[in-house]
């Protein structure tokens, strides 16, 4: 397969050769059209002026001499002829010598017409433009004035130095070809770099970046490539991070279960503490279960496709059910859940998924709220969006943590770790599910005052 640069080079050089050829033909045409025509016109003019010296009768020696004299100072060749043999006067008889003018030309001249012709003349052994002016008296062709000018055709001219011409044309094309080759190579260099970079990327080196040297298409492509590389690298790192986190998260409860389990097995636990140890193992096993469940949910949410259909869902009903589900959990911390529900709202949604969003948010709020506080779950309509808020009076989230809150396994309070029962996946799941419903959400939080999560989901209008 030919390289793109070779193809471009071929095209340019081909066009160049065509241009040279065209210029050659065009110059020839101009030469014929302008130069030759001009020469012809001036020859006719001179010839006609000279012919005014002829006053009729025989062409005299004096006249011939005058024309000869003129010839000596002229750049054209001029001579007068009065020899009837030269003028084809004997034409009815067979002529076995070369006359200056032919029988047909003689007829033209007899009518007083000037003849112009262009071509090879045997007498002068070259290409000439010639003009013949008749000198007539009483229908007698007494003589002619013959003017000719060597017509050095460009080809003829070049034939002498044809090698120089061909050579210089070849060198010209070669030099230009070389220049174009270099130029293309220069232009193509970033592309080549891009290709190399892409290959490195394909081999897994996500650190690869290309240098952006220009602002043209290739520069833009390089920029886009860099952006893409950054994204891929980030995604790759996130993936690695996620895996590391998952294994870490799983390992802690497993080591608990393993450690206490082995201790029980070998009888290192005192009888009085056995019950407590078993409870601990069960708690950690529950955590494991919950964690794996949530991972499953998250992976489902991420892999969710369009194929799962949404349907009209009365939001109020779902919200009440969620309150019912979470009430018990809340009461354990003596937190009251207040629901302010707009009964009219119907959204296009999947009931289970909406429930999950709300449960996740409420559980999160409960987890980080002080005992005895109040929590508000509300829904209202704003234009064509359903606005759902979950508001708590918990400890709040520091501003610097807010952008990372939806990242998997991100915890605001690292120290509190797993003891509070959060897996660090809840908000990630919420994020995926809200997106799935074509909605948006955001978190407002103030340390010590509380957190408000607002979700906006499009309302189903015609129902």
């Amino acid at each position, binding site marked *: 397969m030919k390289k793109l640069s070779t193809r471009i080079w071929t095209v340019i050089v081909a066009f160049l050769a065509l241009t040279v050829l065209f210029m050659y033909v065009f110059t020839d045409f101009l030469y014929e059209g302008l130069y030759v025509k001009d020469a012809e016109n001036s020859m006719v003019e001179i010839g006609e002026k000279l012919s005014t010296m002829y006053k009729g009768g025989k062409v005299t020696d004096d006249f011939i001499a005058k024309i000869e004299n003129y010839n000596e100072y002229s750049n054209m060749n001029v001579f007068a002829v009065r020899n*009837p*043999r*030269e003028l084809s*006067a004997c034409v009815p*008889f067979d002529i*076995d*010598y070369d006359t200056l003018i032919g029988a047909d030309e003689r007829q033209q001249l007899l009518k007083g017409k000037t003849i112009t012709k262009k071509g090879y003349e045997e007498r002068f052994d070259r290409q000439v433009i010639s003009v013949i002016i008749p000198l007539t008296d009483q229908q007698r062709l007494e003589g002619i004035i013959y003017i000719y000018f060597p017509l050095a055709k460009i080809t003829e001219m070049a034939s002498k130095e044809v090698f120089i011409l061909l050579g210089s044309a070849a060198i010209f094309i070669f030099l230009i070809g070389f220049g174009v080759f270099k130029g293309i190579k220069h232009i193509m260099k970033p592309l080549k770099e891009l290709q190399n970079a892409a290959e490195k990327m394909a081999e897994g080196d996500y650190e690869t970046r290309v240098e952006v040297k220009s602002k043209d298409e290739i520069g833009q492509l390089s920029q886009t490539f860099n952006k893409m590389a950054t994204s891929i690298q980030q995604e790759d790192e996130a993936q690695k991070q996620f895996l590391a986190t998952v294994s870490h998260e799983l390992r802690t409860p497993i080591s608990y279960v393993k450690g206490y389990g082995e201790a029980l097995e070998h009888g290192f636990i005192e009888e009085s503490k056995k019950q407590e140890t078993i409870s601990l193992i069960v708690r950690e096993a529950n955590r494991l279960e919950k964690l794996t469940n949530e991972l499953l949910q998250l992976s489902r949410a991420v892999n969710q496709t369009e194929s799962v259909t949404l349907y009209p869902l009365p939001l109020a009903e779902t919200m009440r059910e969620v309150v019912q589900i979470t009430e018990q959990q809340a009461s354990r911390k003596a937190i009251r859940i207040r629901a302010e529900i707009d009964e009219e709202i119907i959204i296009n949604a999947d009931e289970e998924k909406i429930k999950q969003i709300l449960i996740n948010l409420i559980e999160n709020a409960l987890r980080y709220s002080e005992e005895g506080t109040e929590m508000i779950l509300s829904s209202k309509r704003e234009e064509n969006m359903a606005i759902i808020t979950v508001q708590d009076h918990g400890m709040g989230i520091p501003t610097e943590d807010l952008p990372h809150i939806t990242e998997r396994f991100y915890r605001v309070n690292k120290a509190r770790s797993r003891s509070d029962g959060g897996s660090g996946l809840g908000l990630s799941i919420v994020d995926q599910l809200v997106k799935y419903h074509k909605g948006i959400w955001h978190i407002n939080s103030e340390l010590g005052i509380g957190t408000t999560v607002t979700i906006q989901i499009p309302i189903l209008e015609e129902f």
Partner: protein
Amino acid sequence: MSWKKIWTLFILSFAMILGGCQEATYPAIPETKDFVASVNIQAPSISFINEQGKVFTTWKLEEGYTGATLIHHQYVLLYGFQLKKAVVYNLSTGKQVYTIDTGLGVTNAIYDEKNKKIYLANGKTNRVEIYNEHGKLLKDQKVGNYPMSMMLYNKQLYVINYKDTTLSILQVDTLKPVKNWTIEKSSNGMVIVENKQLWIGGHGEGIKPNSTVDIFDLNNGKKMSQIKLPMMPVGFDKNDHKVYVISHGDSALSEVSFDGKVLRKTEVGANPFTVNLFKDYVVVAGYDDHHVYFLQNGKIVKKINVDKGPFQLLVRGKEE
């Protein structure tokens, strides 16, 4: 209109259609009418001019004939260098009488009134041929290169070989070569003066124009002298006391006495090739200006417009 008339008309039209398929018929020339006719080889046509200098009939020829000769005062033979056949027409009826299969290359034809024979010169085969009055080939003889001018004198046929340096003299009946004389190349036109001199004109060899008439001793073929005349003397005619010479290069008619003195020169026509005597006139045809001139005493008395390229003159009824 009766049936008879319609029938006649039908027959007539049919005859005309049939006639159209055959050779051309030209306007008849009354037998008693004298004329000088110019053979116009560019047209081609023949213009018949009467004594009053009027073209009374023109024959528009259908083939590229390059020359013509009167036969017997009643017929005209038309020939052409590029034609395979020569044709004889009856002047009185304007109808074709017979044809002669000459083959290409006929340059000249003369008629021997006494023996009723036609002599043809052929520039392609370089032969001279004799035909009888019915177009039958009787004899032929190879001569020099490109025989053209021919003249009969004293039972001998004088032939100028145009592209050669010889004059061939043949026996009139057998065409047996008698002798060859050396002459200039491109010679054309001859006349015998006082039964002892042969005058020969010519164009000149190559691009060098000739301006002389060479005079030869009729007995031994020796060049006796030459007369300086205007350029290219190629046509002759004579009467009892002088010779008329036409010089086409200078468009001049010269009257020369038998002893070689130039009596008068007259500029006439443009590029004339031929001069003939007709009645009281000297007649000259201007090839380039397409006019026939009647002259008397060195003055042009009539100028007659004819078709293009009058090259030759035919005279019937030379003198009154």
